[in-house]
C-alpha cells in the first residue's frame, strides 16, 4: 500500500466513520433517555435515502403511506385512551400531529411535483416524511412498555427492526438506489483528490454534533432529556413528562438517522435492508463509549469506519468479520473495567 492509497482509504474511512458517529450519538441518546437499545436506527437511514431517491425518480415515496398508516394507528390508540379516561379534549394536539400533518405532507408530496425542486428542498421534504415516524414508533411499540426491563425493550427493538425492514421491502422494493451528491465539486489537497460529498458529510456531522451539544447543554428541553436519562422517577417528580422525553429522543434519533441516509446515499448504493449493518457499525462505536459517553462513542465510530476501510483493502472478504470482531476486545476492556455491583433492572 503506498501513501496515496492509504490516504484514499483514510478519506473513505473517515467519511463512513462520521456517519457511524452520528448514528452512535443517536443510539447513546435513545438508550440514555428510554433504556431502549435502538436496533431499528439503521432503518431510518435506509428510509431517508430511499425517500429522497423516490422523489428524484419522480415516484411517490412509500414512506408517505407508512406515515399516514402509522399516524392513523397512533390517533386510534390515543382517542381510545382518551375515551377511557373521559378526557377527549386532550387529543386535539395528537390528532394534529398524527392525522393533519401526514395529510398535509401527503398533499405536498403528491401535488407539489417535488421532482422539479432543488435538491435541498427534496431533502427537507424527505426528512419531513421520515422523522415523524420516530415518535410514532415510540408510541406504538415502546411507550406501553416504558417500565419493562432493558432485555424486554431490546427484544421489542429487534422485532421493530424486522417489521421496518419488511415494510421497507414492501414499499421500496428490492432495488437499490443512489442519490446525486450535494456537491459535484472535487479538489486536490496535495496529491489527494477530495470530493465534495466527503466534505459535506464531515461538515454536516460536525455541525450536528455541535448542535446536539448546544441542545443538551444550553436549552431547557435538552436538560430535561438529560434529567430523564439520569433518573426517570426523579424527572417525573420535577414535572418532566417521560413520555414526551421518549418521543423527543426518538424524534432526534429518526432525524439523525434519516439525515445520515441522505448523506450516505450518494456514496454507496442503499437497499431497503442496508440500514441494519450501517446502524450496527454505529453500535460498535456506541459500545466503545459504554452507551453513555457521547465523545467516546463518536471516536469509537470513527475508528470503526477507518478499520472497515483499511480491512476492505487487506482482506475485503473478511471486512464484516473484522469490524464486528472488534467488539470483542472492546467488551473485554469494558468487562475488566466494570465493577458489576448489582445492575439489576
Amino acid at each position: 500500500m503506498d501513501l496515496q492509497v492509504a490516504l484514499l482509504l483514510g478519506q473513505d474511512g473517515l467519511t463512513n466513520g462520521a456517519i457511524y458517529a452520528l448514528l452512535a450519538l443517536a443510539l447513546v441518546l435513545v438508550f440514555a433517555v428510554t433504556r431502549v437499545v435502538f436496533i431499528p436506527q439503521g432503518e431510518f437511514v435506509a428510509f431517508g435515502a430511499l425517500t429522497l431517491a423516490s422523489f428524484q425518480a419522480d415516484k411517490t415515496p412509500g414512506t408517505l403511506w407508512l406515515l399516514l398508516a402509522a399516524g392513523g394507528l397512533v390517533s386510534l390508540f390515543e382517542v381510545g385512551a382518551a375515551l377511557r379516561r373521559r378526557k377527549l379534549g386532550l387529543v386535539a394536539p395528537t390528532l394534529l400531529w398524527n392525522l393533519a400533518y401526514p395529510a398535509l405532507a401527503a398533499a405536498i408530496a403528491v401535488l407539489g411535483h417535488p421532482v422539479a425542486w432543488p435538491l435541498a428542498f427534496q431533502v427537507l421534504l424527505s426528512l419531513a416524511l421520515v422523522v415523524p415516524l420516530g415518535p410514532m414508533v415510540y408510541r406504538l411499540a415502546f411507550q406501553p412498555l416504558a417500565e419493562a426491563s432493558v432485555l424486554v425493550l431490546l427484544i421489542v427493538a429487534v422485532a421493530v427492526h424486522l417489521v421496518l425492514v419488511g415494510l421497507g421491502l414492501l414499499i421500496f422494493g428490492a432495488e437499490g438506489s443512489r442519490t446525486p451528491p450535494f456537491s459535484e465539486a472535487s479538489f486536490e489537497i496535495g496529491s489527494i483528490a477530495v470530493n465534495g460529498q466527503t466534505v459535506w458529510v464531515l461538515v454536516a456531522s460536525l455541525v450536528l454534533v455541535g448542535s446536539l451539544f448546544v441542545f443538551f447543554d444550553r436549552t431547557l428541553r435538552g436538560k430535561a432529556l438529560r434529567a430523564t436519562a439520569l433518573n426517570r422517577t426523579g424527572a417525573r417528580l420535577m414535572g418532566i413528562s417521560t413520555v414526551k422525553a421518549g418521543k423527543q429522543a426518538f424524534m432526534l434519533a429518526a432525524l439523525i438517522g434519516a439525515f445520515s441516509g441522505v448523506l450516505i446515499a450518494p456514496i454507496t448504493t442503499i437497499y431497503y435492508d442496508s440500514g441494519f449493518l450501517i446502524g450496527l457499525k454505529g453500535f460498535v462505536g456506541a459500545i466503545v463509549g459504554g452507551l453513555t459517553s457521547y465523545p467516546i462513542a463518536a471516536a469509537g465510530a470513527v475508528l470503526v469506519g477507518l478499520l472497515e476501510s483499511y480491512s476492505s483493502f487487506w482482506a475485503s472478504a473478511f471486512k464484516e468479520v473484522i469490524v464486528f470482531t472488534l467488539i470483542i476486545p472492546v467488551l473485554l476492556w469494558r468487562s475488566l473495567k466494570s465493577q458489576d455491583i448489582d445492575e439489576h433492572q
Partner: protein
Amino acid sequence: MMRRHLGFIAFVGLLGVCPLVLPEFYVTLLNYIGLSALVTLGVVLLTGVGGLTSFGQAAFVGLGAYSTAFLTTATDLPLWVAPFAGSPWIALLAGLLLTGVVALVLGFLTLRLSGHYLPLGTIAWGISLYFLFGNLDFLGGFTGISGIPVLSVVGIELRSGRAFYYLIWIVVLVAVRVIQNLLDSREGRAIRALQGGTLMAEAMGVDTARAKMIVFVLAAFLACVSGWLYAHLQRFINPTPFGLQVGIEYLFMAVIGGAAHVWGAVVGAAAFTILKQWLQDWLPSLLGSSGSYEVIVLGVLLVVMLQRAREGLWPVLARLVPDTKQPITFEVTEVSPRNPILALGTELLDCRNVRKEFGGLVANDDMSLLVGAGEIVALIGPNGAGKSTMFNVVSGVWPLTSGEVRFRGERVDGMGARQIARRGMSRSFQHVRLLPCMSVLENVAIGAHGRGRAGVLAACLHTERREEREILSFAAAQIERVGLGEFMVAPAGSLPLGQQRILEIARALCANPSLLLLDEPAAGLRYLEKQALGELLRRLREEGIGILLVEHDMDFVMGLVDRCVVMEFGQKIAEGLPAEVQANPAVLAAYLGGAL
C-alpha cells in the same frame, strides 16, 4: 400430577404416530420444529430462566453443523485433524468441544457485563461467524458443503425424513427432561436465582459467574446438537440458516411459547414454524409480490405479545391440563448443629476504623464495632447515617476504603460477598430480595447452596436426590423455625412484606451462619409478629449465634438487644447498653435535632 403425566404420555404417543399417518410435508415440518425446539430450549434456559439473552444461538447451530459437515466430507486433512474425520459421532464430539471452547471464551468476555452487552455481543458474533462460514474456502464459501453422509443409529440408516424424525424427537424429549431435572436441583436454583440479581445470590454463597457460564454453555451445546442433526438430515449446508436473522427467530420462538417454561420452547417452536410457513404461503399472493413479508406480521405479533401477554402460550396451555401437584413431601429433620459451635462470647465480628467513600462522600468514617457469639447488637441511627453501607461493607458487597474487618479472627475485608458468606456470615436485605414466583421452600433452599456438593451433571441426571432431600428438609426446618410452616409451597411473592422479611431470615439461617446481619427485620410487621420475631432472635442468641441488626423500631430494639451502636453522619457517636444509649445527650440530639 396424574393428569399432567397423562397429558405427557398422550403427547408422546401422538408424536410417535405422526410420521406413520402424516404426508411427507408435515413430517418435514415436524422435523424442523424439533430442531428449532432444541435450540429454543437453550434460549429459554438463558432468557426466561437465567435472565440473559442471546441473538447468536444460530451461530452455535452453525458450529455443530459445519463441524460434522467438514469432518465427514473433507479429504486430505492435515495430520492432527485426520483422526477425527469420517465418523459423524466423533464429529459430534468434536463439534461439542469446539462449541464449548467458543462459548467459554465468549462467555468469559461478555457474561460479567450488565444485561444489554451480552445480547449486543451475541448480535456481533452472530454476524461475524456467518460471514466467516461464508468466506472460508475449506467450508465451501457461500455455496456450502454437500455430500454429508447419512447417519446410521444402531445399524439403521436414517435416510428418509420419516426415519430421522424419531431421532430428532427422542433427542428433544431427552433434552427437555434433562433441563427440567437441572432446574429442579441445587444448581438449578442457583441459576434461577440469577433473575433476582447477583447481589442476593452471591450473598447466599452462589458463584453467579459460574451459574451464568453453565446456562450459556448448556444453551450452546443444545444449539450445536441441533446443528449436527440438521446437517445429517439435510445432507447439505450453507451459511444461510446460521445467520443473525435465524438467531433472532429462536428468541421469538421462546417468547411466543413462554420464555420461562421448558415446554414453552417446544410450543413456541411449533407455533412459530407453522405460522411462518402459513404466512409465507399466502402473504406474497395477497400483497402481489414475492419477498419475506412474514417478518412484518411476526414482528408485530411479537411486540403485541410482549405488551399484552409476556408469559407466552405455554401458561395458557398448561391451564388446560390442571396440575394437581401434591405438596412436596419431606421430613423436617432436627436442625443440624452450627458449624462450628462457638462458646458464648467468642469474638465473631471485629471492625476496626472502617472507612467507606463514594467519590467525595464519606459514608462510613472510623467505624469500629464488635459482635460476639450469643450476642445481639443493634446498629441504630437516623436515616442516612450509613448503617446499610456498613452492612454492605462488612458482608463484602463493597470494598472498603480503609480499615479492617475480621470475622472469627480472619481478615475478610477484600474478600467478595460469596467467600464471606461461606465462612459463616449470612444476611437479609433492607429491600427484600426474593424470587417472587418461586415457592417459599425453594427460596429458602437457595440459602443452603453451600451445603451441597453435587455438580451440574448429577443434577441433570438426578443422581443427587439424597443430597437434594437433605437440603429441602433442612430448608423446611428453617421455615418451621421462623413460623412460616403453613406457607411452605406458596409463591414467595404472595406473602405480605413483613413475612417476606422473615422469609429472608429463614434463608439466611439455611446457610448455617454463626453471625446474622439483619437489615430492618421488623419493618412491616404487626405487633404480635414483632413479638414472635423477638422470640426467634432470642432463641438464636441462646444457641450461640451472633446477631447484628439495623432497626428503626426502638421499642423492639431496646427490649431485645445486648448492646447498641449509634451512628450519625457515618460515624459512631455512642455505644453501650440500651438504657445508657437512650440517656446519652449526643444520641438524643441526633434523633431529636441539635437544639436540645
